[in-house]
């Protein structure tokens, strides 16, 4: 894995409501540079929404978001999102473009690289995820696992300081999950700052440096994976773990 110039990400007292629905009720999340934070919790607990607020796909109602100690709420949100890569449950590759074009698009249009240079860098990223040989096919001709690896390459190509994974393996067939998780673990080892929303308790326990358990728009419990998985303090976390493990 290449070296990453990763950053430290902090969310402070984040609130978000959709009408009368209070989705995030004061979330604190701190991810130290080069570490991986996993966020677990039942469906509808606000995990995925939290990611979208932290890269300002959705603007928070209250609270602050800091990258390397500096608030980013007043920055141009498009520039902020160039610094935070995101990988989605449904991959969301651009179906009208080839695999390599998917990776090169933002390099050309946002980083303003020339066609050749963007292509070269995109191929390097594809090589990294083991899919260089698929550069010229359309995403529809790839398996789910391959598509998700391309999506990871697309995000990494922008050389982000932080990577978000939103249930990146939930839509994959079981036999394809491990390939993607292995790649994510590689990134974590390589020193990428990562926030991983996941239902994969094995990954959360073995790869992440901290675990945050959310329910009902609140952080119920957070800490080191060993503590979270072996000595849960709250009843809510205990019952969640007994349901999923």
């Amino acid at each position, binding site marked *: 894995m290449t070296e990453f110039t990763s950053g430290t990400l902090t969310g402070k007292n984040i609130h978000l409501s959709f009408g009368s629905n209070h989705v995030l009720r004061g979330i604190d999340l701190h991810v130290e540079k080069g570490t991986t934070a996993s966020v677990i919790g039942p469906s509808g607990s606000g995990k995925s929404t939290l990611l979208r607020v932290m*890269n300002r*796909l959705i603007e928070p109602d209250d609270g602050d978001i800091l990258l390397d100690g500096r608030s980013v709420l007043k920055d141009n949100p*498009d*520039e902020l*999102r*160039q610094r*935070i*890569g*995101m990988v*989605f449950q*449904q991959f*969301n*590759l*651009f*179906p*009208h473009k080839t695999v390599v074009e998917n990776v090169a*698009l*933002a390099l050309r*249009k*946002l980083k303003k690289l020339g066609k050749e240079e963007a292509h070269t860098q995109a191929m390097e990223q594809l090589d990294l995820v*083991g*899919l260089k040989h698929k550069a010229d*096919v*359309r995403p*529809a*001709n*790839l*398996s789910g*696992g*391959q598509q998700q*690896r391309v*999506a990871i390459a*697309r*995000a990494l190509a*922008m050389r982000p300081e932080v990577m978000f994974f939103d249930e990146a393996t939930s839509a994959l067939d*079981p*036999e*394809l*999950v*491990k*390939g*993607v998780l*292995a790649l994510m673990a590689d990134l974590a080892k390589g020193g990428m700052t990562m926030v991983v929303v996941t239902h994969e308790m094995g990954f959360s326990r073995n790869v992440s440096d901290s675990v945050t358990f959310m329910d009902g728009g609140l952080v119920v419990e957070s800490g080191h994976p060993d503590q979270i998985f072996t000595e849960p303090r709250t009843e809510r976390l205990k019952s969640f773990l007994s349901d999923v493990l």
Partner: protein
Amino acid sequence: MDLLDQLAETFLDWGEMAKVIPSLLTVGLPNTLILALASGILGSLLGLMLALMALSRNIVARWAARIYTDLFRGLPAILVILVIGIGLSPIARELTGTRNPYPLGILALTLIAAAYIGEIFRSGIQSVEKGQLEASRALGFSYGSSMRLVVVPQGIRRVLPALVNQFISLLKDSSLVFVLGLAASDREIFRIGNDAMANTGNLSPLVAAGVVYLIMTVPLTHFVNFIDHRLRTGRPEKKEPDELAAPIGKKA
């Protein structure tokens, strides 16, 4: 047998057809194509603008698009062509210096086509999954760039069959400009057939004109079915199993 002979003479008089075919092909066909292509292209541009307005967050733009679409979809084409072709002709004469009714005919056809094409584009753009916009924005693209690079191209691709259908309908509706009065060299397919019929009292020239339309529209109709099928099922490419992920899965 008399009756059949009479019918054949009325509709299939080869002599009359032969007389009209040269001007159908050298005058009528190019003129019909000019009308249909020009209003098709301009209508697509205006239609795309209408679609983007209809989908915009600006309520004024949305309403303007809505009213425009209701208006031009709700009126008979011949009425729009007459009102614009005659009503605006003094202005057009001053601007272009000619009495040629084509600019106004094309304008009227464009305005009508744009209303339909706008709806076609809107449905196409709306059918693109929300995740596409989200993924593009997450990479750092602005809303405008995301629409331009990611969402709109996919939306347009999906509605290509409907667009070709709209073009077929323009080919036929272009015949309606005859109501504006056309000089001999401006006549399109229908008018040439119609004039020849009026002069001879025989319907065969109109039958010949109809055949020229069919030669264009029938292949286009089948072309629509072809691209529709292709868009639905995708290009026949070979799908391979996931060679890399599968072994990782087995090993562990």
